[in-house]
């Protein structure tokens, strides 16, 4: 394998790894549940996507012919990540998990406050 291909694969892998780490860092570090929801749904999914692109290039270069097998995992993750985030968020909304005080428009508190503008 030539050096340019190796550098490209390494870039995709490292970028994916850093995004996965940032997503998990957001999960560990932010204050309330709804803010934590943002890290895993976006950063981690993109991180795995980057690693899968790296692996597609790797296996297409080392084995005979193209290898799109791995793309299925990325496709599946990109379809299911918003759905699972939605349903976990809905469960949290149902149980009325404690929010940060500075969150605006908390749906189960002041109903009348800001809803007239969007009606």
């Amino acid at each position, binding site marked *: 394998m030539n050096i340019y291909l190796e550098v490209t694969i390494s870039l995709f892998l490292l970028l994916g790894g850093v995004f996965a780490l940032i997503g998990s860092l957001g999960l560990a570090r932010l204050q309330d549940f709804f803010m934590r929801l943002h890290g895993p749904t976006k950063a981690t999914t993109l991180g795995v996507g980057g690693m899968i692109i790296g692996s597609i290039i790797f296996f297409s270069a080392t084995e005979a012919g193209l290898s799109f097998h791995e793309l299925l995992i990325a496709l599946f993750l990109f379809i299911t990540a918003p759905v699972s985030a939605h*349903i976990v968020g809905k469960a949290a909304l149902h149980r009325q998990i404690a929010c940060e005080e500075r969150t605006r428009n908390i749906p189960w508190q002041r109903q009348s406050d800001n809803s007239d503008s969007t009606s």
Partner: protein
Amino acid sequence: MLQNVIQLTMFIVALALVLNVWRLCIGPSLPDRILALDTMYINTIALLVLFGMHEQKTLYFEGALLIAVMGFVGTVALSKYLLRGDIIE
């Protein structure tokens, strides 16, 4: 060089998994724990893909695909239990 990069990325993903386990242990509420579990599934998929590249075998992709499906179903089932199991309204 590529083998070293793969090992470094595996280390980064393992670090992410440790952070998830921490949130799984301390998580103040049940949805937090479900979310941590879901993130652990996704990170495990990444680890398995990297391991397949390390060993140069395509066999591990079936495993990664299975974990993706099972993780999604598990997350949905747990959240559904929270939604239906307790009655507030």
